[in-house]
């Protein structure tokens, strides 16, 4: 084949350009540690990386949702636990008050105890967590329950403040996964918040010395206790569920991060070896090109 002088130059230039391009590409990848800079570097992997990154961001959000929901559930559990304790105390007081051996003074003292517990129930019903009334449904800003009092200022029942106190609060804790996390007044105190009415009736019966009425109310108090206890079980199971979800999200995030890294990150050891190989090749090309360019019959004439 005939080799013209221009061919030597063009060929050398092309070889050097290819060698420099490969070296520059490798250098860019090494400096960022990423295998994919542009979608065209690997379109399939880019699609995977984008989806994985989106999932990872969603997971971060789900973890926050789970954490906040858990804090809410933990606050609810503490408040409901206290309500369970109060319900037990009311039951104990009622059982004592139903005993014929208790005289009027004792009954009055027991009524005063019930009255105190009722005030505490009201306070519990309006419990706040991070400025949110946790048992107020959608009425989270102001106390959702207002006490109805008799002429002497004693609680006879509670009424909701406006609409939405029975609202179910949901939290986004997974992909398209909503979890109801709140308990409402009805969950805790029954339809019409009868639990407080029942306790008030015990108190009033004790004050009136009507032990028969107290005895009649005892089964109702048992039902009220069961309801509050069920609510406690709900908060407990919510926390357990959230903990399980949190672990699941953590596990998935780890797997996703591993998958992202596999698709997107550079195999640094291999890249560095490739870089050295390309560097040697470039040096060899430079050396041969320099040699070749110098060779000419002109030098021998």
């Amino acid at each position, binding site marked *: 084949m005939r080799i013209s002088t221009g061919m030597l130059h063009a060929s050398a230039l092309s070889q050097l350009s290819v060698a420099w391009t490969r070296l520059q590409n490798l250098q860019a990848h090494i400096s960022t540690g990423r295998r994919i800079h542009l979608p065209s570097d690997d*379109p399939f992997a880019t699609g995977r990386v984008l989806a994985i990154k*989106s999932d990872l*961001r*969603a997971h971060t959000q789900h973890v926050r*949702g789970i954490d906040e929901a858990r804090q809410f559930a933990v606050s609810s559990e503490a408040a409901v636990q206290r309500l369970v304790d109060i319900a037990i105390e009311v039951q104990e007081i009622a059982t004592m008050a139903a005993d014929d051996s208790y005289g009027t003074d004792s009954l009055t003292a027991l009524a005063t105890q019930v009255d105190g517990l009722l005030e505490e129930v009201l306070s519990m019903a309006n419990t706040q967590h991070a400025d949110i009334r946790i048992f107020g449904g*959608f009425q989270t800003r102001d106390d959702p329950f207002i006490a109805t009092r008799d002429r002497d200022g004693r609680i006879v029942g509670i009424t909701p403040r406006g609409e*939405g106190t029975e609202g179910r609060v949901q*939290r*986004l804790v997974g992909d398209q996964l909503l979890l109801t996390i709140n308990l409402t007044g009805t969950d805790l105190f029954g339809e019409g918040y009868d639990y407080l009415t029942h306790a008030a009736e015990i108190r009033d019966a004790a004050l009136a010395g009507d032990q028969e009425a107290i005895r009649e109310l005892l089964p109702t108090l048992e039902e009220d206790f069961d309801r509050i206890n069920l609510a406690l079980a709900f908060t407990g199971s919510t926390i357990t569920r959230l903990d399980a979800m949190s672990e699941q999200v953590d596990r998935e995030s780890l797997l996703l991060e591993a998958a992202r890294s596999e698709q997107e990150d550079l195999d640094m050891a291999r890249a560095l070896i490739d870089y050295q190989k390309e560097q040697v090749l470039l040096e060899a090309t430079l050396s041969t090109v320099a040699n070749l360019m110098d060779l*000419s019959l002109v030098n021998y004439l």
Partner: protein
Amino acid sequence: MQGLTHALDIARRAMIAQQTAMTVIGHNIANANSEGYTRQVAHLTAEVPSVWGTISFGNGVALESVMRKRDISLDNELRREMSSHGRWLTRSSKLKSLEQIMNEPSDTGLGAALDAFWASWAELSNSPDDMTRRATVREEGRILSHRFNTLDQRMQQMADGIDSEIRSGVDEFNLLLGELRAVNTSVREAELRGVSPNDLRDRQDLILDQMSELSGIAYGERENGSLFVRVGSTLVLDEAVFRPLEAVIHDLPDGSRQILIHRDRGEEVEIDEGFLGGLLEMRRESLPEYMAAIDALAVGVIDQINSLHSAGPSGVDFFHGTDASDMRLAREVDEDLHLINASTSGLPGDNDIALAMAQLGSQRFLAGGATSPEEYWNGMVGRLGVASREARFQEESLQISRDALDQQRMAKSGVSLDEEMTQILQVRQAYLAAVKLVEVTDQMMDSLMNM
């Protein structure tokens, strides 16, 4: 019978012929690095012999011609490759720019902005009454619309840049066309005088090369040596034809602008190869397709967000705008955080709208319910990646075949200094031999005179 003077005459012709050959070698060496230069070869042949009776006497050497070493079919093949390569090189480079504009995969692209926007609603759903979270929703909404605006703006700038490149390319094509017309005239005149216009032919070839890179062309040669050129089906240059191209911006009914190539204020000229072909394809097809896809995403997001948001008590839209270019926060939302609807009831703890918003990212409400924003965006970036990769592969493969053809052409037409050096030696020896012939003949004549 030939005399000694005839020998002197043969020596004279030989010296002249070798001098000419040396001149051609000198011309080749001088143009070894000239772009488009084709090596020339002096063709020396034996003069027509004289016949004396039955004997034929040679009359020495004659310079028959100085020819270019050129392979026309190789030229044609190479120019076709140059046109295709020009198109794919442009396409590859522009798609790469588009990839850079899309800025994916990254944590600052549109995908991340969409995710952050959905996440801000999820945060709000956890505490719908919280003003800080409402402010975050507003800020993420602002960032999202800004990201859409920027994408549209940069793509529009790219379109404007391509328009400008097309106009420059057309200007350059016209310059070449004008130059070719002038060279054609000179070639015709030279051919009429019977002169072989080798260097002018080189110029013609170089112009054809440059025109082929700019646009796919068809060309041919008339008998008088002048070239005609077609672009698409339009004859743009011939002996009596000179039709420069013109890039014209058209305003389309949908408000967008399109660039078309016309000939000399006449019919439209179709260019689908070369640098201009690649630019026109990007400007007319690929770029508008991606711009429309981003607009469709913006419109889908605006509509869906607004339809959910306006169901709340404030009744206002969340976003205003009709596409990616003018998407922005609704003024009411921008001015008053209380007008952000976290729920349809408006109650402080209700979060149904915020929850619905938070889940929009993976809900299929785009393209008639076929795809979610996440799938839509990822799919678009993936398609762009595939198109760009294909363009790069095509470009690289065409570059290889173009280089190979170029090497073949250089092997045929390029100057080899080593070859020219050997030619110098050959010519010098022939010249010195001719001089020696004169000397010897002179001595013979001296001897004859002194008898």
